[in-house]
Each structure stands twice: as C-alpha cells, then as structure tokens.
C-alpha cells in the first residue's frame, strides 16, 4: 500500500471507493426509513396498532418501536401503494373513505400525459390543436380557381 504522500497513490480509486461506500450507506439508510417500506412495522406490538394488510399476519415480533403517527402513515401508504400496483390510478377510484391521495393528480386523458408537472397553459392550448386536427383536420389554404403555373415548356 503506497503511503499517504506517495506519488503513485491510487487517488482516483480511493475517492471512487469512498464515494460509492458513502452512497451505499446513504441508500441503505434511505431504504430503512422510507415510508413505503414496511420493514419497521413487521410485527404486532402494543404500541403499534394492528395493520390491516393481510401480508402482515405473521405475528413477527418487532424490535423497533415506532410512534403512533408513523404507524398510521405507514398504513396509509401501504394502502395506496397497493392501489397503484393494481392500476387504480383513476381519480374517482382513489377516493376511499373520503380520503384522496394528494400525490395523484386527476388526469383525464392518459396519452396526453406530459411527464413533468409543468403542464402549462401553453401546452394545454397546443394539445387542443393536436386534438382538433385529429377530429376535423388542419385548416389549410383551399385550392381554387385554375391554380398557378410558372415557367413554360422549356428547360
């Protein structure tokens, strides 16, 4: 191993390793604390209310204690994750027990969906042209009269 001050110290490699190590640690931490991940609420406990989800009927003992609020949050998120998985992205079906997920916008036309939230007035207006052209065709100049001829029969 070359010393810290060595000329041919593999600096790039070291930096890359350190960075990837830190990144993996961060990824790990994020997956542990993520709201849709139910690792922290795998079991039943007096502190955590029983989850309605069928998958968790295992009776596994949890070794982490989470707050009541967090538990509620997890429960709700599981429900919506399930619904998304089933493809019920439509706004009306989302309304369960009077609660609407704010993450899901009500988008009527699916293939007009732009991927960003920046659907501005301009975009909407321009979509109306595209849709209008599908229905009634483009507004074009009308061919009329004898038309126009240029030049004559010579090269």
């Amino acid at each position, binding site marked *: 191993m070359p010393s810290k001050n060595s000329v041919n110290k593999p600096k790039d490699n070291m930096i890359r390793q350190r960075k990837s190590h830190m990144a993996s640690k961060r990824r790990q931490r994020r997956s542990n604390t993520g709201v849709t991940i139910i690792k922290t609420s795998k079991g039943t406990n007096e502190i955590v209310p029983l989850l309605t989800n069928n998958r968790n009927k295992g009776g596994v003992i949890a070794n982490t204690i989470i707050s009541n609020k967090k538990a509620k949050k997890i429960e709700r998120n599981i429900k919506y994750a399930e619904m998304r998985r089933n493809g019920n992205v439509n706004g009306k079906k989302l309304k369960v027990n009077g609660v609407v997920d704010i993450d899901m916008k009500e988008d009527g036309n699916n293939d007009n969906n732009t991927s960003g939230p920046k659907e501005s007035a301009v975009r909407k207006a321009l979509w*109306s042209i*595209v849709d209008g052209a599908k229905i009634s065709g483009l507004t074009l100049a009308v061919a009329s009269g004898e038309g*126009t*001829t240029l030049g004559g029969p010579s090269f």
Partner: protein
Amino acid sequence: MALQISPKDTDLLLKQKNVLSADVLDKYRYAGEVTQTCLQYIISLINDSYHLGKHEPYSAAELCLLGDSFMQTLINGKFKKVIEKSIAQPVTLDVNDLVVGYSPELTDDEKTNLTFKVGDIVTINLGCHIDGYTSNLAHTIVIFPSGLTPPGPLLGESSDAIVASYLANETIVTLLACALKTEKIPNSLLNDKSNRQITGSIIRNVVNAIAESFNCTVVPTSKVRRIRRFLAGQAEGVVAERDFKGVVWSEIDQEKELLKRCNFTEDGEIISNSNELITIDQNKGRSIDNPDKAIPTDDFVILPGEVYMIDIKMAPINKDEPGLYTLESLDGKTKEGFNAKHSIFIRDVSMSEQLKLRNSRRLLSLVDKHQSVYPFKLSYVSENFPLNSKGNLIEQLNHIEKDVNIFKFGLNECINKQLFVSKAILSCKFIPLKEILKVPTSTGINGYDAANPTLPGMELPLPKLGITSLKLKTLFKYGKRTVVSRYVSTVALSNEVGCVRLSGGNKLFTPSWVHTNYQLQGSIAEIVNELSALTQDERFGIKIDECNVLDISNVGEEANDMEE
C-alpha cells in the same frame, strides 16, 4: 467581446466604404454579373447532361467544382487592382430536403456525392464578392426526364413550395424598390398612410401571407437582411454583427403562429388573456438588452442607399397533422442513410495556434494566403484551381482530387483547434407537434447548441414551451424530411441609379415549369398584382435594373472544353 477599433476606422470601414457611390456600385454590379453568368453556366451544364442527354450526368461534386472554377476565372478577369475578391458562397446544390451547404468534394464516395433523379428539385446557391461587396444568388430548378422539352409541369407539394418562394422573392424585390419611391407603395400595405415607408413587419406580413395562400411555411433561417461590405451573413452566429437590420424567420415564429390558432383550452374555456399568451417576452432568458442592435427585430425602415439580400425558403405544410418545421444539421458521422460530410469552412481569424502536423501547417498557410473571411472549400487552395481551359481537364481534376486528399489530413487539426469553423449542412425536417408536447422541459431553458450557432436572440427555438435546441435535436427521430425551395436575390437601392437587381430576375432566368392547385387570394393577391404591375411599366412605375450575364466568348470555350 467587441474588438477595439478606433472611431476613425469604424467610420471609414462601416460608413464611408458602404456609401453606394458609382465606384462601389460598379463593384457590386460586377459581382452580380459574375453570379448571374455562373448560374447560367451551371444551369446549362445540368441541361446538357441531365435533360438533353449530351453526355453522362455530372455528379454534384463535379458540378460544384466546375461552377466554382468558372466563377473564380470570371472574378480574376476584372478589377485586377482589387486585392480581396473571391467566391463568397461556394456553389452548393441542395437537393430536395437539403436547405443549405451541400457541396461535396470530388473525393466523396457515391453515397454522399449524389447524382440527381427525375423529379428532384435542386437549389443552386452561389455568390461572389469584389472588395467585400457581395452578391449572393439561389435559384431552384426541377430535374425533368430527359428529352427536348419537359413532358409537363411538375405537380404536387414541391411545386407549391417553388411557386410560393418564387413569388415571395419577386414581390419583396419590388417592395424594396418601392423604398426609393415611397409614393408607389400600395396603400393597403400601410397602417399609417401619412408615414409612407417600408418596414420589416410589412415584409414579414407579405411573405407570410404568400406562404399561407400556397399552403406553405417559411422555413427557419429565411431572411431579408441588409448587407454591407464584408458583412453578407457569411459567418452568422459565429460573429455577432452590430446594427443588424433584417427580418429573420425562425421556429419562434412558428410557435407564435400555432399559439395564435388556439384560443381554447382543453376544457373548452376561452383563455381570457389570449393576447398575453402569444406575445413573447423578448427579454426573457437574456440578461442583456440590445445595445449593439445585434438581435434582429422587425422594427426597422428600409432606406435608400442600402443593399439587401432576400433569402426566402419555403416548405409545403404537412396535411395530416400540425407540427414544427425545423432544420437538422448533418455531420457526416453516422453511416446510416444519407449524411453528407462538411465540405465548406470559414477561417476564424481571431484564433491563432501553433499546429503540430506538417500537413495542417501547410493547409493553414495556404488558406491564410488565398482566402479571406468568406467560406471556402479545400479544392480552392489547390494549385490547379481554377481549372485551366487550355490544359488537360481530366488530369487537372485528378490533381485537385489528390490535393484535397492531402489537405484532409491537416483539416482535422485545424478544426479541432478552432482555426476553421465548418459550415453546417442543413436538412429540413417536420416534427409532429404531439411529439414536442410530450417532451418535458427539465433541462432548463438556458442550454444552447454550441455546434450550430444561431443569430443572437434566437438561441431558444421554442421560448413559450421552453424547449431548447438540444432538446429539439432529440426529436429528429420522429421527424420527416420535407422538400424546400429557395430563392435568393441581392438588390442595391441607389438614390442616383435606382434599384439595381444584382442577382436573379425573371428576364434571365425563367423558373422551371411547375403547376400548383393553389393561387393567391384576397388582399394579398391584390397587393402582389399591384406590385407586379408597377414593374411592368417604367414610365409610371418602378424601374428595376437587372444585372446581365457577362460576355463569355472566351470563357465559353472553356465551358465547352469542360463538357468534353
């Protein structure tokens, strides 16, 4: 960054040298005559080989080289004392969807060196300058089946574009001539009757109206602009030009036009501030205002004593769906399909660099010695250019080909060190609007395409949608190639002599035989008729003096030799 030039020099170079005196007009006129003659020569070459079938059809590279060589011979023929005079625009033969810049070298293979087919429309573009006074010219012709006469007019979309661009070009020439006699301007064109002058917005409206009545669109980079000594738009985008005066069409106008068409949102409600929707904030995204007047606006007046270049390109509108007409830059790198290699270069005189290869040093010194600020091709610096009519032609062509091959070794280094800037080869593409709307604007609106410079102020092609030119580039896979017709003329407006049309003109060059089902209608028909009536009668109307072709009795021999 602006160059530091003393006020005295600025006054001399930009003002005094641009006064249209008899001397200056002579130079302009000769440049115009050279371009006219050269166009006639190239058309005769095409007619002989393609239409009359006198010999094997020339390929594009051969036509370009013969044309360049012919033009250079003519330029050398007069004004012996003038140091700087050369080709200002190498002969390019833009076929169908190509818009500018297609001018292959002899060394190109068959894939990139085209031979034209029946039904192709070919735009011949060329230009020359004498002492910096430039005349540019473009003319679109149709390749007919060979025979003594064409069997019939060309029909279809291409003919729509040809008719529209031809009429627009002729109308604007007359309109510019009206600037000398403002009382002749048709009243229906003027908003304010007391203030009789031709402005940029009048020109734009007339061209747009003509395009619309032939179901065409004005292709981006079309322009009607003032040219000055050494400032003929040869390095647009590379160098910003102070006091730019001209109307420029770009994707921004198409977006504006599309937005004008829809006053309804998806829900069927009228947008109350539809005016606000279509006005484009000229200053948005730009930290500077327009102190040097380098950003083009329509807010200018055409004055006597100026020279203008009219460059109108039109493409037929897709009948199936709305979309955007934009330009794709070909780079010759990918091998799939037709992808022409760059062959026209400009020396960026602000760069200097010590080169490593012997070949590149030699090329650079030759270019610095023989070429000026105008674009050039590698064949121009060959010893055998221009071709000598007395020598063996085949041998000379072989020599040029060999020289170009050697220069190519040095070319890469010159380009990499940014000593040379290659001129883009642009192809017109139609991109459906729905594909554009599906694209998010996540990259931010300030990304611009450094490889394809635009005029200042036009870096962002779709400012309302916030789509950058880099983003637009990714959409070319949905694009469809569209034919483009192009006409360019140069017009000098002299107070003493009147309007001198340096290049183009219907007396010398009748357009190819085409027929379209559309015709001018409504107010624009009246305006065009009124303007064309003005040019018919010199006594009551406007006189447009067209430059003639030169007497080429001695050069003509050369032309005959070349054909053999």
